[in-house]
């Protein structure tokens, strides 16, 4: 895109995206504070939000970056990049869920066995 054109665009969307990004960052902070989001997962969200803020402030940044790596249209780069990141993160979450599933199974088994032991101990008395 022509940089002159960019500078003539209405800056409204820029303000909106900066505000939304900051709100998002704030919300992540609140979640961590309340202990509802573990830090290791929070890191990736904070990085993503910082990236959003960075490109909201520096609007020409996307053009510069896409020219640098040879992508014809900057929005395409954003879509491809974010889709890729989301896919990887989803895969990571599937791995986490699989591990939780295994741990859950082990716990359930132990509980069932312990309940039985407790009951048979009581009936012996």
């Amino acid at each position, binding site marked *: 895109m022509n940089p002159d054109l960019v500078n003539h665009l209405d800056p409204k969307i820029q303000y909106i995206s900066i505000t939304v990004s900051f709100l998002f960052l704030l919300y992540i902070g609140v979640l961590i504070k309340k202990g509802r989001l573990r830090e290791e997962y929070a890191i990736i969200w904070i990085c993503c939000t910082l990236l959003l803020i960075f490109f909201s402030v520096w609007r020409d940044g996307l053009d510069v970056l896409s020219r640098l790596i040879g992508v014809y249209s900057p929005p395409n780069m954003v879509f491809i990049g974010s889709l890729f990141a989301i896919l990887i993160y989803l895969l990571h979450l599937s791995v986490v869920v699989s591990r939780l599933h295994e741990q*859950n*199974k082990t716990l*359930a*088994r132990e*509980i*069932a*066995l312990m309940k*039985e032991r407790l009951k048979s101990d009581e009936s012996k008395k």
Partner: protein
Amino acid sequence: MEKIAVVIPAYNEEDSISLVLKEVQNLNKGDELVFDCVVINDCSTDRTGEIAEKNTNAIVLHLPIQLGIGGAIQTGLTYALEHDYSCAIQLDGDGQHIAAEIPKLLHAYRQGYDIVIGSRFIDKSGFQSSAIRRAGIGYFKYLIKLLTKQLIRDCTSGFRLFNKEAMALAAEYYPDEYPEPEAIVLFTHAGLKIGEVPVRMRKRQGGKSSIGFFNSIYYMFKVSLAIVFTYIRTQNLKKS
């Protein structure tokens, strides 16, 4: 005295569970061989758990969350291991498996097999399942034979005997849903000797099959994938 655990995974089997328990009870004739029922109540919503509790011969394990057939069996096998049973026999709670056939499995176990599978398709007597299901079983039979060079005719049969070594292995890892064909690959790679003996089976005595029509497509796909990946994953088990 030799203690044998009959592991019965049960999910909503109130119509058949008491018959199954009674049939196992009928096997207890002498003092040298004692069969204990270990019922795993997998979060049944009906009276399965209560009915099983009333039977004084049965040990009932209530799972706090639903684990599916694989997790239920693992729970039963862990119990059997902890209480020093010499072997465990898996018997379905729906009455398909006939407890009176257990001595046939035991006979093969005494001949030195680590895993004994009760098979409908050797003698071809008793309930034979539907044609479409037999076709599915045939497909798994060839897939398993291709990978492990081992012919198991009734590879989806859940009527199985585990010796101590097999119990320990299955307590460590066992698939969740439709575990039977996949487990054969696991056992073969672990170097366990698998035997198959002819048994009669019945039509289920109550309840509903766990595999419906649309599920069966998912079943074929999922189990195929699981068999192949278990084959790859357990290669190193084979070497050691």
